[in-house]
């Protein structure tokens, strides 16, 4: 049985209403509809007639959507300031994560003395910062965009920017020799086009795939 509130849900999310607010609203509407239907059935209407009458009393989709669509206080930050959520926040997030990784590496060793495993840990952390972190951030943006039915432009732009930022930032760990000192640095490097293209493709795949599916569902 199709969800009668699915079009309303889609309408609200596309207008930028917060998903949490939409979920609560729909849950209350479903309860209200059930109460109303039960009341009308108790008054002698058939189940189908009671349901139809209850729906008409609840209000049309536009009637139900209008108060939330027209009031920006119900809207999410992604709808109100997409540039901040999809562009600035992931760049800051990436910077903070890389700084924390560098700090964790520095904390794991004592000045002038690096344990044997430190070189391996340093390389692994560098790869983690270069590949895993930007993909994680990009997929987080894709998840937010899909959940809130955001237009693809801002999240795709944000993903691209995050990935470019990740490819020009390098967490470097240099060791002089075993049991000796070394250097942990965050450096800016020339970006690798292949790395950018590969990361972009992997990062944007879910947004493009699921986005097209959601579009097909909402149009169907």
């Amino acid at each position, binding site marked *: 049985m199709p969800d009668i509130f699915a079009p309303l849900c889609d309408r609200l999310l596309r207008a930028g209403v917060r998903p949490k607010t939409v979920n609560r609203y729909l849950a209350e509407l479903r309860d209200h509809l059930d109460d109303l239907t039960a009341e009308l059935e108790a008054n002698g209407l058939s189940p189908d007639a009671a349901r139809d009458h209850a729906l008409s009393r609840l209000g*049309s989709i536009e009637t139900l959507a209008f108060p939330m669509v027209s009031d920006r206080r119900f809207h999410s930050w992604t709808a109100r300031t997409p540039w901040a959520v999809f562009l600035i926040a992931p760049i800051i997030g990436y910077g903070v994560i890389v700084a924390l990784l560098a700090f964790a590496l520095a904390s794991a060793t004592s000045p002038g003395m690096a344990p044997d495993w430190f070189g391996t840990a340093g390389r692994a952390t560098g790869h983690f910062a270069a590949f895993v972190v930007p993909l994680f951030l990009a997929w987080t943006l894709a998840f937010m965009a899909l959940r809130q039915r955001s237009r693809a432009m801002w999240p795709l732009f944000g993903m691209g920017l995050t990935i470019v930022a990740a490819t020009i930032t390098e967490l470097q760990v240099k060791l002089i020799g075993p049991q000796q000192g070394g250097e942990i640095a965050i450096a800016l490097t020339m970006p690798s086009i292949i790395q950018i293209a590969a990361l972009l493709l992997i990062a944007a795949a879910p947004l493009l795939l699921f986005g097209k599916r959601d579009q097909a569902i909402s149009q169907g």
Partner: protein
Amino acid sequence: MRLYLKRDTNPNFLNGVPELLVLQLLKGREMYGYELVQAIKDGTGETIVIGEGVVYPVLHMLEREGALQSRRQTVSGRSRIYYSLTPNGERRLQEVAGAWQRITGAIRNVLEGPRHA
């Protein structure tokens, strides 16, 4: 299936009246949405007819602004959200009711026409 509306509704429902009604009806008594809509119907003698679902955005906004608080309670296996007035809501009710009385008083004066000496 689509939702549809057969009855005429009050298009200006969101222009302060619902807030006043909700605050007044929740004064001293907590209610969930369905109860509140029934109370509005009963209290206004069905003069104010609304798409019943429209009361929820009003409740959500009043809660967000601190005028209402809500709690979940499971009744007969169904989770309900009960709303009640906060002290902030009590103050807001006084303000809104005062403003409403001034407006209705002014309109009444106009409807009664000019008084000649």
